[in-house]
């Protein structure tokens, strides 16, 4: 019962194994049959062998007994017949024969015969006065002194022949028919009782055995069941673990690949940075040395242009260092932005003003749909974004071109755009434009190069700043129709992670100053301008 309940409560998930699991009952039945059938066969064989032996020995005993008694009876009859035979007293003979036959239940018949083989007295009246000379050897037999035992035509009866002698003279013979009926009956009884006892024993044994076997089979079946279930669970666990391991391995490989990529990116970054630093350094030192070496031999015009180059390259170096610091801080999450309610139009106006001073031939119209737009932003950083984006336009604008600052209020954000009238940006560059040090190199030597060469970091910084404010940045351009840099700033202010702002307030006291300087439109304006070339 317990086992069945067990089996019901825990149905095996069939899909886990290919072989259909047996039910507990089925298994128990098969186990029982396996044990009971051989047991029954063995017991039956034993009963059979034992029974045959027993019956045989019983039959032997009974037969021996029968012979013994018959012999005694024969001897008695023989001695009892001497007198009547001598006397010729047939009546007495008949009386004795009848009496003996009546007393002895084993006797089938008794014939008393004279020497002429005539039956003188018999239990069976039809034999009287008949001559039973059925055997030629009888004469010899009569001459002898022995008892002869022989079978008759009837299997259940045997005959004892005894000569009756008086003083060595044969008087006649006694033929005693002994029936085996009683012996056979006794043996039948023995067999019957044996069969009954055997069957009772067999059934009792079987019952006990079946009970025990079932107990064993049940516990075996339960064990088997548990083992099978355990096996299935193990299989499932192993599969699961294998899957986990494979997954972990894949993750590890991915992580490894990622680390390799990072390492490669780092090496590339360092090599690019060193390259970016080498060129302006070579210029600065080269022109300074040339000035020193040539001294007064140099025309004044050359001197002035060399000095300009030195100043420009030096400031390019400064910008590069500052931009690198900014990018590093952004990447480390230590870029400090201080949010405050800020009117955006004055910032754009100031940037436009500064750019106009540096590029008098260009125009910088500021067109805001709502001049009063006020956002919760870091004003210095937003100015920086304007400068970096406009700087790109300045570099590519035709001599009398204009760079347009626009702002448009949308439902939950403000869309800003800075549009130039340059040659536009080829499609293949647009996606990579915001990557560090990515530059659209112009193979055209006639391309306008008004602004100093950029650091290759301006757009990267602009992108990060906009993203830190919760906005998006992108560029739209069609070859021959200028480029339009767009970015959005959310109206509700941006969801700055508190940790980032808090962290950087402490960590970058001095760094904050650096950034603030870089963002001052009035002072640093042109210098941070050309972000990309």
């Amino acid at each position, binding site marked *: 019962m317990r086992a069945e309940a067990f089996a019901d409560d825990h149905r095996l998930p069939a899909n886990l194994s290919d072989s259909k699991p047996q039910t507990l009952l089925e298994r128990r039945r098969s186990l029982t049959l396996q044990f009971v059938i051989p047991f029954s066969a063995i017991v039956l064989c034993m009963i059979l062998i034992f029974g045959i032996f027993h019956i045989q020995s019983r039959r032997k005993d009974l037969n021996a007994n029968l012979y013994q008694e018959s012999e005694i009876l024969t001897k008695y009859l023989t001695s009892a017949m001497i007198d009547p035979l001598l006397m010729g007293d047939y009546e007495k003979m008949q009386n004795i024969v009848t009496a003996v036959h009546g007393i002895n239940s084993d006797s089938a018949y008794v014939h008393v015969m004279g020497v002429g083989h005539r039956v003188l007295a018999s239990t069976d009246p039809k034999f009287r006065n008949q001559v039973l000379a059925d055997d030629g050897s009888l004469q010899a037999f009569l001459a002898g002194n022995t008892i002869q035992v022989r079978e008759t035509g009837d299997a259940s009866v045997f005959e004892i022949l005894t000569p009756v002698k008086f003083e060595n003279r044969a008087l006649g013979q006694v033929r005693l028919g002994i029936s085996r009926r009683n012996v056979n009956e006794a043996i039948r009884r023995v067999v019957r009782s044996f069969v009954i006892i055997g069957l009772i024993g067999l059934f009792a044994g079987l019952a006990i055995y079946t009970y025990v076997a079932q107990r064993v089979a049940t516990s075996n079946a339960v064990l088997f069941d548990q083992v099978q279930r355990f096996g299935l669970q193990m299989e499932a666990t192993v599969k699961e673990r294998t899957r986990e391991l494979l997954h972990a391995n894949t993750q590890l490989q991915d992580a490894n690949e990622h680390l390799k990529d990072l390492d490669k990116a780092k090496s590339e970054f360092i*090599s690019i940075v060193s390259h970016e630093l*080498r060129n302006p*350094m070579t*210029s600065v*030192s080269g022109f300074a*040395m*040339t000035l020193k070496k*040539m001294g007064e031999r140099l025309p004044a015009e050359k001197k002035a242009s060399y000095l300009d180059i030195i100043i420009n390259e030096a400031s390019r170096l400064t910008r590069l260092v500052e931009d690198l610091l900014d990018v590093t801080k952004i990447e480390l999450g230590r870029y400090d932005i201080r949010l405050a309610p800020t009117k955006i139009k004055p910032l754009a106006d100031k940037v436009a003003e500064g750019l106009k001073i540096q590029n008098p031939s260009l125009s910088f119209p500021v067109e805001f749909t709502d001049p009063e737009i006020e956002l919760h932003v870091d004003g210095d950083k937003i100015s920086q974004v304007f400068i970096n984006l406009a700087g790109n336009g300045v570099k590519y604008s035709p001599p009398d071109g204009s760079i347009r600052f626009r702002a448009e209020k949308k439902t939950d954000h403000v869309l800003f755009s800075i549009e130039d009238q340059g040659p536009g940006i080829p499609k293949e560059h647009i996606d990579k434009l915001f990557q560090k040090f990515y530059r659209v190199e112009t*193979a055209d030597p006639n391309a306008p190069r008004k602004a100093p*060469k950029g650091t290759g970091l301006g757009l990267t910084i602009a992108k990060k700043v906009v993203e830190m404010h919760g906005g998006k940045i992108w560029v739209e351009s069609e070859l021959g129709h200028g480029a339009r840099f767009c970015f959005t700033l959310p109206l509700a202010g941006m969801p700055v992670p508190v940790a980032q702002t808090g962290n950087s307030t402490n960590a970058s006291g001095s760094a904050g100053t650096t950034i603030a300087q870089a963002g001052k439109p009035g002072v640093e304006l042109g210098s941070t301008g050309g972000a990309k070339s």
Partner: protein
Amino acid sequence: MKTKILVLDDEESLRLLLCDNLEFEGFEAVSASTGRDAIEIAKKDKMALAVIDIGLPDMDGWEVCRRLREDPSTKDLPVIVLSGSVGDEIHVLAKNHGVKHCVAKPYDCTELVELLKRIVAAKG
């Protein structure tokens, strides 16, 4: 006639620096900002020497060297390569491209000009 030296660098100020210095030394400096221009100039005009920057917008400085070596008119042109760093790798590349001299940036302009003068003099 002045000895002509080809200066290939995409950086305008560096081009100017080298050209002016070479001219002060009595050479005629011909400058180019792209590899394609440089190869064209070298084929058209007999140059005594070429100074080639590795980082170029249109093609790698080594590619310029390879193309110069391929053309019969420029295959013997001595080349000085300017590169950001000079390591084993650069030397192997230089050897493979038939370049005997590599100069790392930032370079000392005076020393570079002295080197150019020596090479031109050795060539006769």
